[in-house]
Each structure stands twice: as C-alpha cells, then as structure tokens.
C-alpha cells in the first residue's frame, strides 16, 4: 500500500481515522464514464476546518470530484484519503466513512414519505444506533440551528425549496459529520431563497466545519471560502485564496470563465 502512494504525499493510511491527517486528501484522481474521461488527474488536500469552494464551467467535473469523496462515484484510479483512511481500500467499511461525511445535494433529496423529524432521525437510529429520544433531541437541535424548529412535523412537499435544503443540511448535521460536501446547494432554488441557505452554510463555516462546496455563488466563495479551486475539463486550473483568484486570476482559462460569470 505504501509504495503505491510514493508519488503523492505519503501519508500513512489505515482503517481507523487519524486526527492529525488532513480531512480530505486526493491524489491523482481519474474518473471515466465509458470513453469519456471526466477527471483527468486531480490532486488536492482539504485541511480540517477549511472551506474550499469549487467553481468551473458545467461538465468540468466538479460534481464528479465531490461525489467521489464519499464514493457516490467510484473513481477509475487514484487515491482518496479521508482523515487518513484510504476509502478505496476494500477492507474499509464505506458506510462507516459516509457517516462522517455529510452530503447536501442540488435537488435536496429529502425522503418525501417521512416528516422532517423522520428524515433527521432515520439514519441516526438505523446507522448510529441512537435511541428514538436521543435521535429526536439531536434532530431538534439541528432544526433550530437551520431556523426550522417549528416545522418538524411537516412533510417535505409542504416546504419551500429553501426550507427543504435547510432540512437536508440539518439531516446531514444530525449524523455529527466531521466534514460536509455541498453539491451546488443553491442552484435549484428561487433567487430569493438562496440567502437563507447560504446563511446556514456561513454559520457552519464559522463554527469550523470542514466544507467542500461546489457552487456558482461567487459572493459566498469570496466571503466564506478559505480557498477557491477552479476546474476545467477535468483538471484543477487554479487553486488559491478566493479574493486573489477572483481579483486577479493567473490562468487564461480562469480569466475566461470569470469574465462570463461575474
């Protein structure tokens, strides 16, 4: 295992997470769908407590990269370490890794057949083995945090998109994850609902949550992000302080992309 990693940063890996390891370490990640190579060798490290925003044109592989971190996409080759654990190691229990990584989707993906409280409690009870009382208590704390304490009995269909996305964030938080992945969390929302969701994410960032955010919200990236990564055509084009990248992009491709979106 160790020889294979000599190309990258040789962080020793094991089955148990290590506190001193970076939150996420990606080394030479490739992913193809059939003949189409979406990720062409990505390497990046997300330190604990860091907020990394990923931007780029559609089809650049941002979502695929994010989804690879909790193995919703199986990489073709490369290495992904989460808290020092090689998640592609067949010995590793993927379900256990996933409980430590919260994921928020563009389409919210709340369970429509359950109430808000049911959505928040399901995995706590079925995966973490928490009792109903404990699960509900954790759920209520997180609902209060996203400003929806009064909606615990509602079904997702009766909530606005912004409320649904905040419930989805609370659902992830209820698993007490060490880090959160956001896959275009505000792209499916009406413009006037985006603010509430970003506010919740800002609070999380201020509390020191490790976050990787695929987004088109340049304002959020500038104000909340510790780092900004621009991807194009399956590669990281630029990686740096968001204020600097947005103010004077070094790469022509970054300049071209920013001139279109800003």
């Amino acid at each position, binding site marked *: 295992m160790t020889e294979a990693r000599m190309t990258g940063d040789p962080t020793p890996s094991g089955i148990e997470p290590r506190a001193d390891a970076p939150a996420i370490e990606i080394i030479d990640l490739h992913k193809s769908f059939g003949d189409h190579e979406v990720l062409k060798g990505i390497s990046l490290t997300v330190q604990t407590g860091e907020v990394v925003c990923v931007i780029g044109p559609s089809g650049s592989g941002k979502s695929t990269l994010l989804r690879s971190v909790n193995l*919703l996409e199986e990489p073709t080759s490369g290495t992904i370490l989460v808290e020092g654990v090689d998640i592609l190691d067949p010995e590793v229990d993927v379900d256990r890794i*996933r409980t430590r990584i919260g994921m928020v989707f563009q389409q919210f993906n*709340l*369970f429509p*057949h359950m109430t808000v409280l049911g959505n928040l409690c*399901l*995995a706590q009870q079925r*995966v973490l083995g928490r009792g109903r009382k404990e699960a509900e208590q954790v759920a209520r704390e997180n609902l209060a945090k996203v400003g929806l304490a009064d909606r615990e009995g509602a079904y997702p269909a009766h909530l606005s998109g912004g409320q649904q996305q905040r419930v*989805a964030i609370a659902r992830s938080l209820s*698993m007490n994850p060490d880090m959160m992945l956001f896959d275009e969390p505000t792209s499916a929302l009406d413009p006037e609902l985006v603010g509430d969701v970003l506010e919740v994410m800002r609070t999380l960032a201020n509390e020191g949550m490790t976050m990787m955010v695929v987004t088109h919200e340049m304002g959020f990236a500038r104000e909340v992000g510790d780092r900004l990564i621009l991807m194009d055509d399956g590669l990281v084009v630029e990686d740096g302080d968001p204020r600097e990248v947005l103010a004077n992009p070094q790469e022509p491709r970054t300049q071209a992309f920013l001139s279109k979106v800003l």
Partner: protein
Amino acid sequence: MAMRRTTRRKLGRVAMYVLFVAVLAVVVLSADWDRFAQYFLRWDIAREQFPQIITVALRNTLVFTVVSFVGGLVVGTVMALMKLSSIGPYRWFATAYIELFRGLPALLTIFAFAYMLPIAFGVRLPFAPVGAGLLGLVVVAGAYMAEVIRAGIQAVPKGQTEASRSLGMSPMKTMFFVVLPQGLRIIIPPLTNEFVLLLKDTSLLFIAGSTIITKELTTFARDATTTTSNGTVLVMAAMLYLLVTIPLTRVVAYLERRMARSR
C-alpha cells in the same frame, strides 16, 4: 335542399339511438323470460343457500384472495429485488420465474401445485387439497406482482438512494426504509387491480378439489347447480363477485385520480 350541418348530425345520432333500442328490444323480447326465470332465478332455491353462500363460500373466496395477495406481495417483492440484483444468477432465476408463471395459464399452475407437488415431495400441505392449489395461486400472483413492484422501485428517483447511502445507510436499509416505502406507494393502483384479478382467479381453485368447508364461490355455485339441477346459485355467485369487484375498481379509479393530482 341542403340541411344545416348540425341538423344533419343530430338526425344521424337519433337514427343510431333508434337502431340501438330496436336491436335491444328484439333481443329482450325474443327471449323466453319465464323459462329463464325458472332455471336461473328461483327464489326458493336462492333462499336455501343462506347463510352458507356468505359464511362459507364468499368468506373463503375473500380469505383465499387475501392469502394469495399477501403471499404474492412477498414473493413478488423478493423476485423484484432479485431481478434488480447485480448478481447474475439471481437476475436469471427471477426472469425465468416471472416468464414461466406469467406464460402458463393460472389453471395449469394451480393444477401442478395441487397434484404434482404432493407427489414429488410426498407432503400434504395444510387445508388439503385447497392449500396446495392456493400455493399455486400465490406463485402466479408473485410473478405478476414482481414486474409491478420492479417498476415501482425503479420509479423512485436515484437521488433518494444517493441521499440514503450518503447518510451511511447500507444498500439493504436503503431499500427497506427509503426506496420500497415510496415504490409501493406509487404502485397502489396497479396492486389494487391485481387484487381484483386474484379475487376472480380464486375460482380456478376448483381444479385442486375441495371439501365442504373449503368451497369458494364458484365451486359452491357449481356444486349447488348440480344438486339443485338449477342455475340460480350461479347467478347469485356472479352477483356476489360484482358486489366486491365493482366497489374495488371504483377505489382503484379514485386512487389513480389522486396519484395524478399529487404529481
């Protein structure tokens, strides 16, 4: 002189009604209703059938329907999951099972289970002989329901599975707590329809043979027709079937309208 177009259309419609009523009248009037009533609508015979036609025959029909529906639901769910499995042999088995029992007449399958199974395995199923026949009906119901359930599972958006898996839920837990509850809700209308079909198919259980206490409606009516030399009980059985199936098909229609609205 040319008639107005709407007038011509109205006249055409009236002509169709007249023709229809005339045909109906000819058929109704040419039948010998006295003789018909004598053979099929005898009140004295009808009265003799109570209460057994309800307490035994209708009750058994309903019990057999529910048993084969629930059994079929379990078998169908297992087959649907096998058909969607990533493991080849499971898929092949489920496909073969579904093709076999959907392709055979239900009557033959019931016959096979009633007579071949006890001989092959030397066992007597409870409530013989109808128990074995009922097992055949479960197997047939399972084959039809498997395809419906598979469609229901596949109708649940992929994002549901992804959300569940990303919370650390295993594939099994994801299926049982997230996908199946939603998939089954989607297929309530076709499943209710399946229930109606099964209700009628319990009439095929006569091939398995029956005892006095295991007679369902059709067997009861056939036997009564022989003993009374009169068809009245067949008509009664027909009316009892309709008494159950018509309200049920209304329920299906209602559920379908409600599903359509909630989308």
